[in-house]
Every structure is written in structure tokens, then in C-alpha cells.
């Protein structure tokens, strides 16, 4: 245990150092270009649809080889070049000073430097450029989205954020769970007795699981993804999997969106194809499967047209071409009905934790 911990600390420190030296390296390159009267330029991997490909080995979407040059020589790129240079400068400060900010913060902070973004989408876009340029997620640059999800269970963390350095917290101390925010994301994972991570789509069920002591019964850390899992949540799930060696299982609504929530945690999204280390390739989708709807006689509601369209879309995705992923999509399409996680309440509030969860966990072992 102790051995592992020091290794983790070292990894986190190394990552920060690596990032800072990347930034400094870029800074020096540009500095020298300016000094020598050369137009500086960035070469940013292209994020156009034609350059997003599925990597079967990595089991996630990645960017292809084409990249676009953004040069200060080109008058129409000069502004966005400067914005990107500013962002690199700004996150360098954030990292060094140990401060965090949000996407919206970035938009407003830019105004202090006469880097005028037209609107937030423009600044958000530059942030994605920065991610693509360095192949690090924005969270590593201390930039966080507004949405928050939470985590609960026996996991001891040690903060690295300024003012809390070295302070430790156990994440089972507060029954509502802990927000997966900047401090938690940057904290070091110290110790856990858990043997499993259960990611669940809905806050209501998350609370039920805590109440029913699922964390104890199943030795689990429970993560509320609050719908489609935000990047910070996916990063935490990955760390729990890789750093702490815990298997990850996913429970989501019994519909095409639920299935895809599980898929994104497992193998990422096309939007984040420029990023690595956000996926949990070995994560398992527990349910609710389309076949569970009949098996457990769950009350259902009819699918909407957009639900059905979504099924057809996903059927073109290379990740849905085989196995259970493919089978369940086909059954959904046949049923044209869906069931939410709450549907189990028809058979008693604890039905999902007492009956469904153990059965599915058993099945998952053979997946």
C-alpha cells in the first residue's frame, strides 16, 4: 500500500512537471521566433470529422495524422493565434499558482489582457485547441466545466490544492457524497478498502445506494455520473481503475442513451478524440439492458422518434458492431420501449439493490 502511494504521488507530480515543461518549451520556441523575426506557429491536430478514427487497440476514438498550422503570419489567424498563446500563458499561471477556473472564467479573464473573445463558444473552442495541442484534458490545465457529479465510499484522498496540501479526507464521511471538483480531481488517491466502483446515472439512485449501504454490502465506491459523465468524473473513474486497481461497473437507464453513457465511460467520445486517459476500457455495463426489461417485467414508456433515430446512428458506430452492445441495440429497436432505473421501484424501493444488482454483478463476471 505504502509503496503504491508514493508511486501515485510521483505520477501526479511528474504530470504537473511534464505539463509545465511543455508549456515552457512552447514559450521558448515562440520567444525565439519573435526575437529572430520569424512568424511563430502552432501545429494543431485537426479535429475535423474526417480526422477522427476509432483505434481498436486503444479501444477509443483518436485523432488521425492530419494537423492544421495556425500561424501568426496569416492575418486571419493572427487573432486566434494570440488567443491560444494567451491561454497557454494563462494556464501556466493557474498551474503554478495552484488555482482553478471554469470555462466561463476563462472567457472573462481574457478581457483583462485585451484578448477579446467574441463569446464563450469562441473561448471554449480555443481551450479545445489547447487540449489538442498538448494532448492533455483541460482539467489538467485547471480548467473545469460547470457541471458536477459526486462520489461516495471508502476512499481516502490527500489534497494537493493550495491551502489544503497534505490534508486527508475519507469520502464515506458525508452521506450526500463529495463533489468531483478541482480539489478532488487534483487530490492524490491514498487508500481504499473497496473492491469495486459502481457508476450510476442518476442522483436519486445514488442516494438510495448510500442509504441501502451498497458501499458496504458490495465493498463499492459509488459514483453519480449525473447523466453523461463529465470529463473529470471519467478521469476519476479511470484513476480508480488504473491507480487503485478497482473494476468499474455502470448502471444507467434502460434506453439507448443509458447504453451510450456506459460506452462513453468505457471508450470515450468523438468530441474528446484528441484526449487520452479519459477512458476505462475494462468497465462493464451492468444495465439496464433491453433484455432486462422483459426479464424483470419492468414498466416501460414508448420511445420517441429521436430515441429511434439515435439507435440507427449508433448502429453505424464501429463500437456497436458486435457482442452484447450490438444485441441490446437490436432489442431496443424491436421493443421500441424504454425503462428507467426507477422502474424497479414497482417491486419495492430496495428491489434494485437487493435483487437486481447482485444478479447483474454475478452475470458481469462472465462478461
Amino acid at each position: 500500500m505504502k509503496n503504491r502511494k508514493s508511486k501515485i504521488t510521483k505520477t501526479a507530480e511528474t504530470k504537473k512537471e511534464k505539463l509545465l515543461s511543455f508549456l515552457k518549451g512552447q514559450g521558448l520556441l515562440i520567444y525565439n521566433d519573435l526575437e529572430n523575426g520569424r512568424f511563430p506557429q502552432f501545429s494543431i491536430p485537426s479535429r475535423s470529422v474526417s480526422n477522427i478514427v476509432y483505434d481498436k487497440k486503444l479501444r477509443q476514438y483518436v485523432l488521425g495524422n492530419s494537423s492544421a498550422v495556425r500561424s501568426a503570419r496569416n492575418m486571419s489567424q493572427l487573432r486566434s493565434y494570440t488567443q491560444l498563446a494567451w491561454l497557454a500563458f494563462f494556464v501556466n499561471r493557474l498551474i503554478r499558482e495552484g488555482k482553478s477556473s471554469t470555462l466561463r472564467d476563462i472567457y472573462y479573464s481574457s478581457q483583462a489582457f485585451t484578448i477579446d473573445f467574441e463569446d464563450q463558444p469562441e473561448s471554449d473552442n480555443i481551450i479545445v485547441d489547447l487540449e489538442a495541442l498538448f494532448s492533455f484534458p483541460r482539467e489538467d490545465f485547471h480548467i473545469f466545466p460547470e457541471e458536477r457529479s459526486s462520489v461516495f465510499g471508502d476512499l481516502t484522498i490527500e489534497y494537493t490544492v493550495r491551502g489544503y496540501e497534505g490534508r486527508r479526507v475519507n469520502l464515506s464521511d458525508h452521506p450526500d457524497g463529495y463533489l468531483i471538483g478541482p480539489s478532488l480531481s487534483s487530490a492524490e488517491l491514498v487508500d481504499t478498502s473497496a473492491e469495486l466502483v459502481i457508476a450510476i446515472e442518476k442522483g436519486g439512485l445514488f442516494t438510495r445506494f448510500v442509504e441501502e449501504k451498497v458501499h458496504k454490502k458490495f465493498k463499492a465506491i459509488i459514483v453519480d455520473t449525473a447523466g453523461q459523465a463529465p470529463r473529470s468524473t471519467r478521469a476519476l473513474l479511470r484513476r480508480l481503475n488504473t491507480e487503485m486497481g478497482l473494476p468499474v461497473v455502470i448502471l444507467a437507464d434502460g434506453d439507448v442513451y443509458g447504453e451510450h453513457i456506459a460506452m462513453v465511460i468505457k471508450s470515450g467520445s468523438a468530441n474528446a478524440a484528441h484526449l487520452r486517459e479519459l477512458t476505462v476500457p475494462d468497465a462493464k455495463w451492468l444495465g439496464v439492458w433491453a433484455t432486462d426489461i422483459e426479464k424483470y417485467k419492468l414498466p416501460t414508456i414508448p420511445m420517441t422518434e429521436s430515441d429511434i433515430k439515435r439507435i440507427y446512428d449508433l448502429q453505424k458506430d464501429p463500437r456497436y458492431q458486435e457482442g452484447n452492445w450490438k444485441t441490446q441495440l437490436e432489442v431496443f429497436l424491436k421493443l421500441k420501449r424504454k425503462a428507467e432505473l426507477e422502474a424497479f421501484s414497482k417491486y419495492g424501493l430496495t428491489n434494485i439493490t437487493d435483487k437486481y444488482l447482485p444478479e447483474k454483478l454475478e452475470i458481469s463476471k462472465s462478461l
Partner: protein
Amino acid sequence: MSLTKETFSQISPSEFFYRNRDLAGFSNPSRSLYTSVREFVENALDACDQKGILPDVHLSIKAVEPEQPDPKAYILTVKDNGPGIESKHVPLAFGTVLYGSKFGLKQARGMFGLGATMAILYGQITTNKPVTVKSCSDGKTLEEYILLLDIQKNKPIILKHSTKEGSKTGLSASIVLEGDYSKAGAKIRDYVSQTSLITPYASITFEDPAGEKFHYPRIVKEMPSSPTIIKPHPHGIDVETIRRMIADTHYQIPNVDNKMISKVRSELGLVKKNLNPKEILDRAQKRWSNLSRPVRTIIAIMSFLNLDFDGLSKTRIDDLDIANKKLTYWDFGQSQSHVVELDSESSYFKQLANTVLGETLHTFLTKRFQRVGPTTADKFAEFAGFKPEKRIGSMTNEELVRLADSLQKFEEFLSPDPSCLAPLGEEPLAKGIMKFFNPEFASVIQRSASAYSGFPFIVEMGIAYGGDIPLAGVKVYRFANRIPLLYDEGSDVVLKIVNEMDWSRYKVKGDPPLVIVSHICSTRIPYKTVGKENVADRPEIERELKNALQYLARKLAVHMSRQGMADMAKKRANLYSKYIPLIAQFVTELSGNKKEPNYKQLIKKGSEIEEPQI
């Protein structure tokens, strides 16, 4: 059944125009006021042009009773520094319709001096007030006339005539007429200002009823070269015109009165001496080449009637029938009519025939038309199926129609002589445009002369862009024979050409600050309507306008792309001076340096990059 009794009576030109005043632009008080201003101002400018005087025109409009609501009586006064009109001509010039000196074929603003008289007539009809004319033609005496028109008789009635000491030549006319300045004011102000644009060699002052003065000073000091009066081109001729021209070439058999007899005697050197008929003829033969045409005709008649001067004084020639070779005369002494057979072999018969039947077709063509030499005349005669020796006086109606048709169809006449045209010239036009619009860019062109239906014309055009011109899209100023055309824009050929233009091909976008000045000069502008406000789309004129406009648009495009490059360079310079220092600031901290890099060189480089032209 009832019978309606109709009376037929001849009406005078004055009465005709009085009854049809709508045709001449006097349909209502506001239009009439505008038309009157135009007629008087144009007369004043024409008068100065003809004598090569730099015009100085003062126009004033004053209400008789300012408190009254419109329409009401206004006093319109136009004063110029032209040659003035000789005292004896003043009453006729201002008191008769169709009296004037503008019958020759050359370009002028007005035609026939008709409009001013119409204005006087209109004023008299609406207010019953006379016209006051002050004229000084010799620089010494100023003649003042107060006149009314006798509409039925088309004659002036002089109410008052006085003479004062004058100092310089010029003419001032003042009429009282019913007008509506509240409605016509904007047009009149436009008219005056646009006139100053196309007449940059004139100084024009306008005082409006409120006492406000608009002064347009002279921009150029040189008069444009003045047009010459020329003969008509065969293509521009119709049957009626030919008939009139032939009538002009006929010589009257002179009236044999005492005055004529003494003229004959003096030309023969027989003022006091009397001779017998034979001696008279001998003497005439010796002096034949020195005799005037009427005297020759009289001698020919004397030869057939065998008369001396006494006999001649008692004779009146009634008819000369060349076809039947008969001469009819009245003998006062016998109070009796006589008929004499004429001997066609006699050389005197030819003299009489020439007089009555006019010239040969060959002579008629070469002498009366431009662009017809002896060879062309012969070729034409063959084309039209006439003998060149054919006497034009002997042509029947059908033959006249054939002649007129053939003149229009014959293609070997050279194109009309443009020396009768008076374009403004490129330099004065350019100066006028610069002064008037204060643009960022201007260019002008004068196309070489062209012709439609035998009428020569020249297109002059100017283009102006930017500067003080508002961003309001293309604005077109139309002129014809130095007159601004303000009404009926929509159907005009110039507008059509401008609207058909694809401006984006010339780097002009959106609602550009663009002005086009178009001037068509011709001995006859093909107006679409009697109102003379829009020019019809003759293909020849259309082609010239299009060529002129395209030429100017190309000039503008060159300017625009130069301007575009300059703007781009400026924009680049601004961008690089803004962003490069920022980048330097960021990377200094990012790279851990203390001192900013020296980026001056890069700003300079960035500003100088040439963007590829799209």
C-alpha cells in the same frame, strides 16, 4: 334631326399654345413655376453661349403677397450678362409665339425660343400682369418694355417703352405668374444646383421667396468651344422637311414695282437714260455676269414681253406656266390680261425655268446637305431612280416621298458632322464634379461623336466615388444638351444602362458612395415624352452610354483595388502592432524570460506581407 353648326376658324400660334399648355409643361402651378424658371435660365445661358460670354445669371422668385397660401402669384426675374436684344426686336421676341433666332441646326438648350414666350403667356393668363423686359445690347442704352400678348392676333401690345442710360450688355425679364413654390421649391433648387454642375463656366445666383441666396460660383474660366451651324444630314430628313427646303430654293418671280425697276436700271447703268427694248437686252447681255438673280429674271420677262422701262412699270406678272410655256400678265394701261407663248429655245426661257423649278437634284443635294459631294450625289440619284438633272421643283408628291425614303435608306453617306455639337469637355466636367461632390475619386470620359437616324450625338460621362458622397447607392445625374433632367427618371435610357451594370465585377459592393454624371449632346435628343425629361433607348445611344460607363467603371475598379490594397496594408499594420506585442508579453512569462523579445522587426514584416488578390 338637328343640325349642328360648326364654325371653322384659323387660330394663331399663341392661341394654340394657350389651349394646349399642358404639352409645354404648364399643367399646374408647381410644374409651371419650374418650367418657367427653366425656360428663362436656359435662354439666358444660350444667349451667353452664342456670343462666347461667360454667363452670369441671377434668378429670383418673390411672392407678391407672401402671407397668402400656395398657389399664389410670384414674380420671377431672370437677369443675365448676355448680348441683350436690339430694341426693335424686343416686342416681337417677347410678345410673339414662334419668334426667335434658333432655327439653325446646331445644339442649343431650348428650341425655337418658344418656352419663354409660353411662360409669359402663362403668367398673363393666370395673373393678367404684363412682362417687363430690360435689354441693353450696345452697352450704352437700356431699353425697358412693358408688354402684353394679344393672344388672338399673336402680336405684342406695348404698354410702356422707356430708355435709360446703360453701362453693360444684358437682358432682364420679369414676369408675374401663379405658382406653387412650396411644392416646386425642391425641384427648382435641384435644377439650379445641377445646372451649375453641367455649366461650370457660369456663375449662377438664386434668391428664393424666403430671401435665402444660393450662389454657385464659376469653377472654370474658359468657355467650351461653341458649336457651328451646319447643314442637315440626309439621314435625318423627312418629306415635310424636304418640301420646306425645296420651297426655300424656289425663287419668287420678283414683284415689278418702282423699287424693282430702279434696281434694274441701276444695275444696267441706265438710271436716267431710257432705251428701247432691244438696246436694253443688248446692254444686259454685256453685263450679265454682274447682274443679280432678280434682275436677270426681270430682263428675261422683258425679252418675252418686248417692254421698255415705261411698259414694265405698267405691267403685273400673274402666272408663269413653264410646263405649257405660257406667261400671263396684266396690263394696267389697257386694264386687260394677256397670255404670251414662250419660246423654249430662248436662253431667257432657261433663266425663267431655273427660277420656277428650282435647282437640279444634283445641285440640291450637294449644296443643301452635309456629307454629299458630286460623286455621292450621282450615286444617290441612281440609287433613288432619279436623273441628276431632274429639277426638284418639278417633282410630284410621290417622287418627293421616294426621295425622302431613299435619303434615309442610302447607306453611303458619311456619318453626320459633329461640329454642330457642344459637349462640355472632359476638363470642365471633371472640375465641376470635383467641386460639386468633393469625391475621393473621379474620372470622366468624352466619347467620340456617333449618330442615330442622321443626328449626330456625343456622350460625356463622369464617375465620382467616396469623399463627401453619402453611402446611399448609385446616384445618377442626367443631362441633355446642358440641361438637367429631373423628372421621370425611371424610364430613362441612362438609368437603364446604370441599373444593368454588374458593379460587383468592378469591386463596388453594397450601397456605394457613387455618383454618375451623364451628358448627352445632340442636335436632337430623342426624348420619350413632350415633357423632355427622359431619353429614349436608341440602340446607338445605348451603346455609347454603355461603353462610357464601362470605361469609367474600369477606372474605378483600378482605384478600388489600389484603395483595397492600401486599406489591407493599414489593417495588417494595425493588427500586427496590436497582437505581436501581446504575444511577446505572454511568451516572455511562459518561457521564463525576464526581457521581452525584440519583435519590432516582425511587426514591420507582418505589415508588408502581400495578400494574394482575390
